[in-house]
């Protein structure tokens, strides 16, 4: 018992940091109803910035203060880009763009390898304080705790007594009425985002030493804990949020201890946070609280006008024609490898076209499905299953996992599902990809692909050309499958479901089964992509399927326009081209260049959403559609 108490207490300081970061999220959500997924990334930027200032001779407190100002500035900039987005969900996806931008900028400037910079420590050493023989906290941790508690109390009071607090409530509850009362809605939003950014940034600066140094992913993954705490606070109550963060901090060491018996288990902290996220989302529903707003990302899907469809098909065919010589001619391994990449990332994009564009659900965990496909293939091959059958087994595993993710989606709004799936992505990075039954102990499962050298004798030793044909073939079949699914009975049910669930049920379709099938089909395609990728690089490893991948895949799908099957080809091209130009994301040595890709993806996502939520194909189709309207008028 005593052991558990002291275990729990050891999590208190970091719990306070979860709470602080979560309060940044809640402050923003209270006013704008937008979920700031970039909270951890703001902390990341601020922590690195403070460290740089400090190493340039700034006094500690000044360095921290300037970094917090940076956080506020980022928050304000974010508000300006979220403002044009229609609906809470679209705004939230804009914050995903910011996550990419911030992560990209930091990686570009500082490199993605564990930084040599030391995090700023507000008070000097980490010596433990002796409390009558009990060594629980270092003096540094005590200071963190006190600072966090004082700040939390201050913010809570601030929001209850000040005019801004009242204005905030008015703006979030009835923006139009607030406008009539002369409250500057935009100004209140700006202040809230600035304040939220500052708090999240401050949390990042404070927590960096606790996380064992500056690390470009750890600080972003930190978001999942903040999300969990914010949800415990029901996205509205600052004191409850604080309590949530602290409780999560206390809980984590105990869970870690309890799971210790399973060899090689990692990421129990994120796993705990993920469980808290899921439970609070479902519980908020149960108790009838609908604090999380809806606002579906894609406008009700319009059938693509013939013009756009023709253009998109033409582009697809042209691309295929361009690719074909690469496969016929003996142009060498590298080109074949790239053709495979186009097909694989095209498949990944296609799985999102199906999920977002047809099923109408948002997933920020598509790379996790890919990872399941890859590991599933590796496991099956480990049991002697031939490669071609193994990739199907991998894809079926991914489909099962996707259906599992679809289960809570039956009850969740799209925005809530985005929260849940992003949390899953973070958790997969830390937990799933090092979980022994799935990944092997070193996180890499060999996936040999015997047979391809025989098919392509003498051409290339490892059969790259034959493999490229296989990948391309599967991609083309999958494109036709999605298109044909969409125009048939299943597609009719899915499209109907997006428009009215009660009416679809009344027409004789089971809402549960239709939705889960949609998820499973999307997971199957993503799983195939992951399996083929594992075959391409001859090994399954989580690094290629990290959270950044999930976010960028969604970003590409949104940028291109989620309603378009031919758009998936474009998605594959973009991923491959950026990989060719900047190197692969899993290639740590290339960190700085990869970060540029991440950054630009984020910038384009933000820009596109400011213009139109329908993406590039949406812009084209709107322009094509204009003409008949003019005639009719």
């Amino acid at each position: 018992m005593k052991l558990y108490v002291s275990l729990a207490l050891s999590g208190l300081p970091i719990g306070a940091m979860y709470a602080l970061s979560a309060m940044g999220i809640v402050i923003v959500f209270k006013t704008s109803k937008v979920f700031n997924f970039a909270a951890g990334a703001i902390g990341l930027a601020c922590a690195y910035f403070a460290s740089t200032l400090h190493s340039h001779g700034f006094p500690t407190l000044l360095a921290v203060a300037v970094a917090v100002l940076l956080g506020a500035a980022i928050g304000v900039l974010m508000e300006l880009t979220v403002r044009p987005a229609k609906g809470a969900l679209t705004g939230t996806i804009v914050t995903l763009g910011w996550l990419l931008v911030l992560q990209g900028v930091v990686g570009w400037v500082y490199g993605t390898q564990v930084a040599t910079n030391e995090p700023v420590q507000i008070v000097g050493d980490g010596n433990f304080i002796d409390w009558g023989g009990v060594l629980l906290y270092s003096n540094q941790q005590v200071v963190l705790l006190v600072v966090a508690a004082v700040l939390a109390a201050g913010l809570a009071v601030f929001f209850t007594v000040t005019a801004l607090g009242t204005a905030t409530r008015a703006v979030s509850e009835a923006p139009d009425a607030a406008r009539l009362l002369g409250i500057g809605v935009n100004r209140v939003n700006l202040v809230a985002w600035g304040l939220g950014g500052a708090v999240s940034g401050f949390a990042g600066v404070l927590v960096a030493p606790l996380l064992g140094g500056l690390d470009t992913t750890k600080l972003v993954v930190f978001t999942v804990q903040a999300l969990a705490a914010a949800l415990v606070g029901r996205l509205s109550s600052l004191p409850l949020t604080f309590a949530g963060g602290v409780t999560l901090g206390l809980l984590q060491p105990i869970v870690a201890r309890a799971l210790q018996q399973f060899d090689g288990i990692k990421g129990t902290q994120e796993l705990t946070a993920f469980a808290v996220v899921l439970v609070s989302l479902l519980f908020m529903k149960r108790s009838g609280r609908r604090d999380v707003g809806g606002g579906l990302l894609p406008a009700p899907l319009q059938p693509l006008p013939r013009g756009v469809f023709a253009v998109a098909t033409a582009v697809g065919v042209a691309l295929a024609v361009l690719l074909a010589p690469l496969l016929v001619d003996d142009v060498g391994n590298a080109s074949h490898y790239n053709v495979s990449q186009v097909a694989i990332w095209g498949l990944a994009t296609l799985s999102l076209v199906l999920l977002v564009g047809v099923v109408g659900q948002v997933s920020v965990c598509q790379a996790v499905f890919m990872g399941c496909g890859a590991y599933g293939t590796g496991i099956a091959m480990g049991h002697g299953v031939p490669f071609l059958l193994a990739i199907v087994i991998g894809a079926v595993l991914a489909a099962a996992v996707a259906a599992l993710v679809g289960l809570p989606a039956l009850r969740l709004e799209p925005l809530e599902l985005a929260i849940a799936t992003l949390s899953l992505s973070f958790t997969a990075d830390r937990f799933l990809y090092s979980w022994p039954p799935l990944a092997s102990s070193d996180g890499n499962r060999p996936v040999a692909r015997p047979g391809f050298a025989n098919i392509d004798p003498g051409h290339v030793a490892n059969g790259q050309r034959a493999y490229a044909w296989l990948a391309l073939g599967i991609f083309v079949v999958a494109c036709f499958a999605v298109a044909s699914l969409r125009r048939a009975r299943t597609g009719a049910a899915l499209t109907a479901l997006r428009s009215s669930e009660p009416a679809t049920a009344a027409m004789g379709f089971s809402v549960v089964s239709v939705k889960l099938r949609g998820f499973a089909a999307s997971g199957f395609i993503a799983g195939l992509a992951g399996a083929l990728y594992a075959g391409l690089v001859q090994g399954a490893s989580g690094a290629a399927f990290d959270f950044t991948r999930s976010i960028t895949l969604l970003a590409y799908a949104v940028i291109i326009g989620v309603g378009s099957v031919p758009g998936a080809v474009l998605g594959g091209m973009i991923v491959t081209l950026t990989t060719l130009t900047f190197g692969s994301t899993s290639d740590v040595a290339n960190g700085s260049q990869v970060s540029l890709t991440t950054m630009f993806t984020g910038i384009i996502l933000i820009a596109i959403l400011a213009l139109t939520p329908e993406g590039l194909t949406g812009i084209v189709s709107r322009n094509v559609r204009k003409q008949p309207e003019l005639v009719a008028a």
Partner: protein
Amino acid sequence: MSAILELRDVGVRFGTFDAVDGVSLTVNAGEVVGLIGPNGAGKTVTFNVITGLQPATRGRVLLGGTDVTRQPAHVRTAMGLSRTFQVVQLFAGMSVLQNLMVAAHRHTHAGVLVDALRLPGRGRALRQAEERARAVLAFLELSHLADLEVTSLPVGQARLVELARALCLTPTCLLLDEPASGLDPGETADFVALLAHVRSTLGCAMLLVEHDMGVVMPLCDHVIVMDFGKVLASGPPLEVRDDPAVRAAYLGEEVH
């Protein structure tokens, strides 16, 4: 006469408020029953309980003698139930024909794999559904609307399309929730004639919620009056109309 639909002491409670409070009713095969009552009486909630969109807090729902209280909506649809909605719920982004085809697919079979891989059943399902949808459109003389997008329809046509979609399910019991609201007097008269035609041709039973007595009186064999979640009166249309309790409920309604 055999009961197609039967409610036994059904209740629905929201928090501490009884939206439906001990309603029992029977609809026999081929019969048209009117369900009337002031706003907020619980008529729509009763519909939702019957169709399985709203779980009952107590009581039983029977379809053709089978207890379906615990069955989900799509199972009840498969057993011959069909409905329209008080607020039109057509599927946006789809044409009239596509809307009807969603319903017509109740009679087809094609799973995800069949649809995705163009296995033999796919084309047949699409063909059957389209035939059925076109036949219903022709029956209601709506064929000219087939390719229009549903959100572009005026409310009168949208209600007709919703009726057509409900008929695509080949119901044995059709539930209509205020099908004539939003129609002008001319359209309403046409609508009454149309429903009479549907009834005489298809012979399905109907449960009709309607405020307009000009629709209820000529169509219904039997009228049930609800108020505050309870059945206030029940009987032949003329008798019910002259019931003092019913008059009081409606006059009370008109005062505020």
